């Protein structure tokens, strides 16, 4: 039981990923689609952050990883892999750009058609 709960961040990733994918593909409303997409992308960032912290710390008697700064007294500590954090930073920028573009399109669509419902808009195509 503890084993399963111990991976809570990975469970969070799986749940967010499912909610996000459902929202992006199944929701009828365009705005909700964008929200779903955002949640989907955030879930992937959560995964990246989780895999950055490697090692079984509880069994080693260590608290957790620290920031990757070289510090003589801390050489027993494991440090957290910085690369995934950098990737997430880039990913957030990309996700923000996607969200901004999507919302801009939504504003234009609403102005032109007066609705954001997928079914109604499909008939306009």
């Amino acid at each position, binding site marked *: 039981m503890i084993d399963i709960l111990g991976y809570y961040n990975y469970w969070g990733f799986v749940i967010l990923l499912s909610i996000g994918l459902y929202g992006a593909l199944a929701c009828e409303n365009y705005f909700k689609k964008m929200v779903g997409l955002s949640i989907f992308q955030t879930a992937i960032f959560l995964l990246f952050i989780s895999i950055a912290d490697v090692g079984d710390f509880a069994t080693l008697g260590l608290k957790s990883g620290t920031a990757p700064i070289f510090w003589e007294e801390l050489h027993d500590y494991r440090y957290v892999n910085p690369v995934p954090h950098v990737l997430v930073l880039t990913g957030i920028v990309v996700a923000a750009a996607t969200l901004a*573009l999507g919302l801009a399109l939504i504003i234009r669509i609403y102005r032109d058609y007066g609705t954001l419902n997928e079914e109604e808009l499909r008939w306009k195509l």
Partner: protein
Amino acid sequence: MEAVIEHFPVLAVAISLLSSFTILVTSIYTKRAGYPISLAVTFIQLVMAVLILIGVLTDGTINYWLGGWRPPWGIEYRVDVLGAYVLVIVALFSFFSTVYAKRVVEEEIESSKHPYFYTLWMLLVSGMVGVAVTGDLFNLFVFLEISSLATYALIAMAGRKALIASFNYLVLGAVGISFYLLGTAFLYAATGTLNMYDARVLVSLLYSSKIVQLSFVFYFIGLAMKMALFPFHIWQPNAYEYSPSAVTVIISTALAKINAYALFRIIYSVYTIKFFQNYGIILDATAFVASVGIIAGSLFAIMEKSLKKMLAYSSVANVGYIVLALTLGKWGVYAAASHLLNHSLMKAALFMVAGGFIYRLGARNIDDLEGLGRAMPLSSAAFAMAAVSMIGIPPSAGFVTKLFILLASLDTGRFVFIAVMIASSLLSLVYFWRVIEILYMKGHRERMDEIPASMLYPALLMGILSISAGILWFFNVDMLQQIALALEVK
């Protein structure tokens, strides 16, 4: 000269990225600078790409370490024969799409928005060039995303219906790219590297790892969504139909090929063919999805009334060809690599003419084209040549691909794909013949003006090349062999 060529991969990305911002800045002073700058930059890129290809063919792979950081820590640009060849495809079709763009953009886009159009256009080009040269999985993600975001905005510039098409593409495209990122996360969790050639070595020890297997599935789903493989193709017909004509040409040729190339790269440079030999089920599933896509795409194309949508469904079928070929060993690699160029040539000519008909007559439906064969002989000839090539009559470009797939099926003993290929050829005969029949044998129109020269000559060139490419490939099998050799496919 050699020393200069080493810097060309990064320069090719840099000049288009810089030109994109230059166009935006110059728009304060003049609204007319966008086209000449784009034309000049894409031409320089074409020259660079050809020089890179010649350099790679004679001296071998170019490795460029960004900032001098040694891989796998730094980002590496690595251009092997396949990369250089795809770079030439991207540069070639970017250049001719830019030539083609001038008149249609003047017609379809308000003049105050021209600088923004060309800013996004060059952003799209730099994203595609970046994908072709990079040797880093995450860098590839960033470049894919740059080109995709530029594409969504470019499609939306046509306004009204294009907004909906663009939004649907954005949602599916962003989910696809996110799946790619998810695959990268899983691969990184298993190997701890992002460099493709480092990952290739590390993955070879981890073929039985569930994480590695799952990461490939994510990569495949993500890129299949991006390149509109059959069950994920729903965004594509509307995006091609409603986007500005020039944008349709560039995304159906260069961008579609770049996404297929990314999958090519990941299958052969990261996971390698040994991974699939160990897990035949993945290979069979991929080939099955691709075969269903080939048949389904062709059937949808037969039922379609609109010309551009019909061509879009034909693209769905042709992407299926490329993915199918990727699963078929050495001859399959030949087929996939040659089809990257062949399909671009044919689709460029077809979409250029289709856009030209809309420009002159506003004719979107196939039935509106009656009698144009006599009214606009040259434009119709360009269309007919490419259509004949799509059907696969020798010695056209389409025939070369089909010949390679035939040889690949015989070589690997998977004869069912011969049946798939023949069925799809017959179906493409049905839907392309229908257009040719309406163009040449039905109705009568007086002679009218051809589509403008800047649109007609690129289309004619592509049409003639797609007919004669079979003979050109005959002299260039050597390059295909080098591609297979660089990917260690035997």
